[in-house]
């Protein structure tokens, strides 16, 4: 790739002793999970149908574990990428080169993404165990990987924008996590209608002939929630959560009635991709030098 920032950051990351250690720990964690849920079960001579189901569950747990780890790790990875250059007093040296702010932020994003993609790729042998025992197809495993990578990319771009906006890495890191969790919570706000519906149910019991208040629309914000994207992925591929979700929330059930799990997942993935592009562009735009305004009352030449 002809992006000097990417190549340079990748060399420095790979030289760090922490990198191989992290890859090893990540793989070991998933391998342990895979052993207890899939492989260990099939060491016995007899394999029951329940064991088969367990291997599918093991696959789902691995996807969930990776989702959780990526969401937790990614914002911090890029939150220091630009503010760190600022703190190290190397940002100006980069900005006066021919690189341009677009290539600068893209290089930073892709380098962190490359490392997370490496972690996800390392998990492929463990995820692929489900192909031996049955329960998910190769295509479905690839969709899971694509979803995980898009989640990582979106979380990284949140960190990148915060790093561009805030001078200090500590502030950028805190703001990145707050933004990621705010997205998770705000997009779930239509669940409030479920609480209202419970109230309506009580009213209906008390007042005879009162029509029950119904929500007859799909809240758009649900499709923007990566957590619901994960549930849809697992529900579509392994039927895990599919029943629970219907019972848990009327508005969610309503959403999934209009938008099947796999379609919901693709909407979610499209949102993650679009958000990544938008946030990265904003991060680059913020680094552009702007003309200051003269204060009011200042003399003009």
């Amino acid at each position, binding site marked *: 790739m002809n992006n*000097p920032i990417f190549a340079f950051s990748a060399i*420095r990351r790979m030289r760090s002793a922490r990198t191989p250690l992290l890859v090893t720990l990540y793989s070991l964690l998933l391998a342990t999970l895979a052993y207890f849920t899939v492989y260990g079960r099939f060491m016995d001579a007899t394999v029951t149908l329940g064991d088969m189901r367990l291997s599918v569950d093991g696959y789902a747990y691995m996807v969930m574990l990776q989702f959780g780890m990526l969401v937790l790790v990614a914002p911090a990875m890029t939150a220091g990428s630009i503010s760190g250059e600022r703190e190290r*007093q*190397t940002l100006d040296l980069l*900005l*006066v*080169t021919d690189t341009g702010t677009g290539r600068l932020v893209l290089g930073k994003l892709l380098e962190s993404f490359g490392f997370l993609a490496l972690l996800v790729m390392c998990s492929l042998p463990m995820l692929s165990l489900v192909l031996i025992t049955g329960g998910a197809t190769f295509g479905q495993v690839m969709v899971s990987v694509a979803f995980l990578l898009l989640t990582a990319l979106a979380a990284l771009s949140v960190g990148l924008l915060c790093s561009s906006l805030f001078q200090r890495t500590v502030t950028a890191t805190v703001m990145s996590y707050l933004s990621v969790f705010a997205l998770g919570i705000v997009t779930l706000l239509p669940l409030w209608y479920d609480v209202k519906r419970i109230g309506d149910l009580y009213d209906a019991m008390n007042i005879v002939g009162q029509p029950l208040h119904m929500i007859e629309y799909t809240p758009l914000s649900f499709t923007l929630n990566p957590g619901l994207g994960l549930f849809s992925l697992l529900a579509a591929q392994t039927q895990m959560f599919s029943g629970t979700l219907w019972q848990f929330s009327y508005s969610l059930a309503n959403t999934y009635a209009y938008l099947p799990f796999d379609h919901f997942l693709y909407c979610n993935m499209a949102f993650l991709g679009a958000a990544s592009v938008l946030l990265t562009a904003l991060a680059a735009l913020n680094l552009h030098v702007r003309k*200051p305004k003269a*204060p009011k009352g200042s003399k003009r*030449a």
Partner: protein
Amino acid sequence: MLVLDGLTRYYGSFLALDHLSLTIHDGELHGFVGPNGAGKTTTMRILATLLKPTEGTATLDGVDVAGRPREIRRLMGYMPDFFGVYDRLKSWEYLDFYARCYGFGPKERRRMTDSLLELVNLSDKRDSYVDVLSRGMKQRLCLARALIHDPRLLILDEPASGMDPRARAEMKGILRTLKDMGKTVLISSHILPELSEMCDSLTIIDHGRLVFSGSVEELGRHMSGNAPIQVRLAAGAEAGAVEAAVMLIRQYPGVTGVGREEGNVLTVDFDGGEDATADLLRQLAAGAPLVDFHRPPLNLEKVFMEVTQGE
């Protein structure tokens, strides 16, 4: 040619740069002097395309610095007053990285990295990690980085600050080489004597305003024209002869005061030109036991204090 025309910059309501205008010719080593907070770094950051002026323009060979920053970045190399280096990176890799940022291919990068390390006397540190180099070495490496794309104009913000005398001497040597290579260099410092030794021309600014701009000789003439002349008469001269000399000087047109110090030394405040000074010397030599007659060399520290004091 670098032309600054009415360059003004506010930070909020604080006026950091107040209609600064000056011209720097090609191939000049131009010193930019001023006390801390005078606006040197603001000017340099505007020229380095890192800040935009509130008003006014700066042009390099007719190219507007604020309007066409990408073009300017190819013509200009910038070394900031404070800069950091990356850890886990060797000296040659550091230069190689910045060369890549300018889009140079592997062969060119290798060639220019080696020649620049040689220019800044760091060839023996080629494979050393950047973060373990001394401050002076880091500064020279940063200078090499600023030269990586062979810029016509070099903007060096306090390149010798914090260096020991030996490192300063090395930096001066490198700057002379750059001047011989035909580069235009704008170099800032808050120490006037440091710059006057090596620069062709100087600009002094204070509180964001231009105080003086011209050649070092012009500054010398400008300031030393007012410096008192020291006259020493023979130690064994009779009191009458000394009195006669004092009278002679006092009566000379243009002499505004004569002071007497120990050892028959007189200080003469005289604002006449060079011809008048020569005539005064002739008359004194004819009628007094004259041993020495000279204007003391310009005390640049004092000049700097005087020039920036009234602003």
